[in-house]
């Protein structure tokens, strides 16, 4: 009898080390060097943008024109990235432009995820007619070119950052509706959903507690990649004059303003262009890394 107890204990000692889910994902993410690069770049950009008001004055550095100092070369004293055709500091404008781009990117994705996700969850969970109606509406939205639709909405409501947000959110809703719906369909076949139903769990609880936490992986990845996409779309809209209006700085607006002088002073377009590229690249790198880290198939 004593031996049995000993045997049991010995087996137990060999128990797998416990590791929390989040730390496991973090562990896998950290191994991906490019993804980490993306995360670090993003963190640095975010830090610079968030703390901007501490070392830059919006009025003095960003808006006020200093015609005397126009087209100062980069790396000169006081203007590390040079100045534009009104003599405004490029660095300050890029940083303040980044504040708008990043905030808008997050806001657009957050809003469309909330709305699109709810639509997708309802469609996927209830199926049948509800699913059919909701998803066909999404199909119609998806069939319209994103930029075109945003243009139409801005044209009707007027160019204003709030309208821009509405326009781009609507354009993004179908993507999230689709991804959430497919994640839900996949999880619904699992037996733990049936187990939850077997003890009479109500639908909202099943969706919130059992389905969504397990669907979060692909959704987070899509959201990350979509932020990058939104930053580009925002820049594009601003470039054609439907987005953020001068003198407010935005990367697309800056590109648009700089394009007359780009032959003589190429840095005025290269710099905002690089900013867009860096931001988009780091979001994409991070998204890819997250996809790998969250994919359960790659576990072990």
């Amino acid at each position, binding site marked *: 009898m004593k*031996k*049995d107890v*000993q*045997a*049991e204990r*010995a*087996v137990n000692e*060999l*128990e*797998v080390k416990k590791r929390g889910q989040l730390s496991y994902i973090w562990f896998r993410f950290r*191994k991906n060097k490019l993804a980490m690069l993306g995360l670090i770049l993003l963190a640095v950009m975010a830090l610079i943008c968030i703390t901007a008001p501490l070392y830059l004055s919006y009025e003095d550095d960003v808006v006020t024109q200093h015609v005397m100092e126009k087209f100062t070369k980069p790396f000169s004293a006081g203007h590390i990235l040079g100045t534009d055709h009104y003599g405004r500091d490029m660095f300050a404008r890029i940083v303040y432009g980044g504040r708008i781009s990043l905030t808008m990117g997050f806001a657009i994705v957050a809003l469309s995820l909330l709305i699109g996700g709810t639509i997708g969850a309802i469609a996927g969970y209830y199926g049948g007619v509800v699913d059919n109606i909701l998803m066909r509406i999404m199909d119609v939205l998806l069939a319209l070119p994103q930029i075109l639709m945003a243009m139409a909405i801005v044209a009707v409501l007027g160019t204003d950052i709030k309208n821009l947000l509405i326009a781009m959110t609507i354009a993004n809703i179908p993507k999230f509706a689709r991804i959430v719906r497919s994640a839900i369909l996949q999880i619904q076949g699992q037996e733990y959903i049936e187990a939850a139903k077997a003890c009479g769990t109500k639908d909202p609880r099943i969706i919130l507690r059992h389905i969504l936490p397990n669907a979060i992986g692909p959704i987070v990845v899509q959201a990350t990649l979509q932020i990058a996409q939104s930053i580009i779309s925002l820049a594009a809209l601003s470039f054609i004059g439907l987005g953020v209006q001068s003198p407010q700085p935005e990367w697309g607006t800056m590109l648009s303003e700089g394009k007359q002088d780009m032959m003589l002073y190429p840095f005025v377009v290269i710099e905002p262009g690089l900013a867009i590229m860096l931001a988009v690249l780091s979001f994409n790198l991070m998204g890819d890394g997250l996809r790998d880290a969250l994919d359960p198939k790659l576990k*072990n």
Partner: protein
Amino acid sequence: MDERNVLEIRDLHVIYETDQDTVYAVNGVNLTVKKGKTLGLVGETGAGKTTTALSIMRLLPKKIGHIKSGEIQLDGRNVMELTEGDMRLIRGDTVSMIFQDPMTSLNPVITVGKQIRESLELHKHGRSEKEIDARVDEMLEMVGIPASRKNDYPHQFSGGMKQRVVIALALACEPKLILADEPTTALDVTIQAQVLQMMNELKVKLNTAMILITHDLGVVAQTCDDVAIMYAGEIIESGTAEDIYEAERHHPYTIGLFGSIPDMDSKAKRLNPIPGLMPDPTNLPAGCPFAPRCPRCMDICREKKPETTRFGTHEIKCHLFAGEEKGSAPE
């Protein structure tokens, strides 16, 4: 290598290395398969059965799986020394594999006849086009599928029929050795019986040697000449089917395995399971791997790995029998 053997494995060690830890999957396996005989390789999940088979085919997952040491002699050639190109010629020709899941081992967009043809064309052996066509028909008929169905796609067959196609595919080039990894586990009992019966008949007809990997001692009893029982990457007992099913002396794990099977003929209500679990393969115990679960564990079992004791063809790796050796075959 002995002329009568088609496969000899000596002291095989295989590890899987991931960033976090090292899995000791196969730890010093010795195996011999005689020409035309079937060896049952029995063990539970994670015992290292499939890893052993994949090592013979040199198909261990790239970058992760490594053969650390050991020797694999297949039909007189050392598998470890062959180039990847030579290996490709051997796979499907000298040795072929049947996998557990017939659904995923056939290509869904190619007709079954074409899939068998492809394998025959890779290993032609001077056959003409006509002979190859005839051979495709012959193979299908042999596994009990009308040759007229060769233009059908895999999804048009039921699970049992698909496994027959897989077997036809494996046998097409008349391999010397077949590695069958749980070939009937995914099938229903009545279909399993049909497939096993067919495999028994073909084995006699074609004189092909086979390693049948399974966890089912019933399947082994019905099909195998020799049996090897694996636990935590080691073969803890081996011998002829008679040695395993009818001899008196057994490894305690073997006894536990038999005790766990619900016996249809007995009256006993309670089963006698083995307590505990298989040891973590990243962290194996120092002594006998079964010691932590063994009802007859002694002090020495926890400290020292047991040597193999031989009783004629019957080999047991357990301290209980140390020194009892008798009638051992001369090496």
